[in-house]
């Protein structure tokens, strides 16, 4: 049952991920955004299969429910036809390649380091309490750095949008 669901969720996640970036039927950004939402939902399903209920719920709440809605919001407010045009940008291609290679590298390193038969930290399974303790004790520094990163992004947005007021 679990294996079947795993195959189902990962296949659907991959399919929706593919349709997000290269949909053969439409080039509408709204369709891409919606397929990204679906990808998030299937990913949440995968987290549930790993008994990581907290992560699954947060995945839906934050990514599908908040971030993607804002994406849609912005897409709808922009001029769609401008966005549908395909432009090969040398800088964009280079940045994309670098980020994809970097992600691949990280994934490969993680997979190679992982013990194939290990079942992970059983203490963390589904327990919000344990997760919270870990986040605020062992991984406090990365957590705070991420917060600062978000703060920087917020300040940047405020600065950009309020520029004309100066």
């Amino acid at each position: 049952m679990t294996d079947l669901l795993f195959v189902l969720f990962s296949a659907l996640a991959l399919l929706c991920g593919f349709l997000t970036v290269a949909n053969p039927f439409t080039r509408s950004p709204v369709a891409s955004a919606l397929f990204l939402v679906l990808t998030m939902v299937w990913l949440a399903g995968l987290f549930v299969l790993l008994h990581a209920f907290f992560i699954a719920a947060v995945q839906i709440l934050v990514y599908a429910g908040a971030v993607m809605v804002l994406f849609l919001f912005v897409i709808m407010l922009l001029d769609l036809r401008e966005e549908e045009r395909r432009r090969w940008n040398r800088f964009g291609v280079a940045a994309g390649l670098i980020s994809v290679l970097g992600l691949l590298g990280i994934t490969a390193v993680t997979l190679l380091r992982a013990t194939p038969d290990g079942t992970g930290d059983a203490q963390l399974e589904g327990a919000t309490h344990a997760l919270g303790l870990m986040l605020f004790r062992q991984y406090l520094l990365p957590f705070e750095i991420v917060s600062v990163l978000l703060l920087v992004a917020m300040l940047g947005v405020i600065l950009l949008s309020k520029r004309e007021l100066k």
Partner: protein
Amino acid sequence: MDWQFLAFSLAKILVVFAVVMTMVAYAVLVERKVSAFIQDRVGPNRANPFFARYIPYLGMKLVRWGIFQPMADALKAILKEDYTPAHVRKVYFWIAPALAMVPALLTLAVIPFGSQLGAQKMVIADLDVGVLYTFGIVSLGVYGIVLAGYAANSKYPFLGGIRSSAQMISYEIAMGLSVIPVFLLVGSLNLSDVIGAQSGSLLAWHVFKQPVAFFVFLVAAFAETNRLPFDLPEAETELVGGYHTEYSSMKFALFFLGEYAAMISVSAMMVTLFFGGWTLPFLGLDQPAQSLWVGLLHILIFFLKLCVLLVGIIWVRWMLPRFRYDQLMDLGWRRFIPVALANIVVTAGVLAMMHR
């Protein structure tokens, strides 16, 4: 994965679904009746099916109370022409009503609507992250409205959709922050534990322990369900009908029912989080039921609390005028989020002092 569990879950889902859909239909009737009484009218009192006259004594009374009106409404919605305007984006136009309806129903999966009947806990899914699940699903509710606004491909629905997404995202934050103190007190995200923490006395109810949290949650709930005084996404006087302007027949009915289903699920959340769920602090009704009758009584208690809150929400619609959009945003971002944050800090501080 045993079959008994599956069978019982399926039965619970079916029963909850049936009850909620009936409640939705009758919530519409209550809305119409309450609005009528407030506005010196009588409301629906003429739906008179052929079998009404065979009900002894009560028949005509039921007709006068409009008990058969939901049937007539449903029949009308089904029989009406399902018109799809030529300029809409078809795919989104078709999935939007479903997306508006489904999240409201999914939310009910984690609400404990009773203690237990026999050995069965009266909750469809007793999740450890219950409330996060609820917020996750509630946050998906915005897609139905945004897509309806986008799919209709005309200006009023679009404005409604844009307003709605901004409004729901803003108030989701206030809503999420407002309940954190409750969970600080309980120490668990499981909704059954939340109810357990509120047993004992009336003062253990979180509405008395955390009035600020309740108030913020209540207001955010109005905004999340697009009810007056925050019904800007469908503000009839400005946007014709908002996001569902272009819809007709059953698709429109789905939006309509979705709104009421969202009201019910949000009221169920409030009952669970702030009003002690299925418990009553007297006669030992705050302990899980040992017999079948007490189990049914618990369900009835939950149902009655739910109905009181529903009537309250309905009443507010006919009591308060609509807010202006900037007032709405100002209220959400500059009043409720700071208040909710302050409430979290104060609660956490008090708890830290007490546990030292």
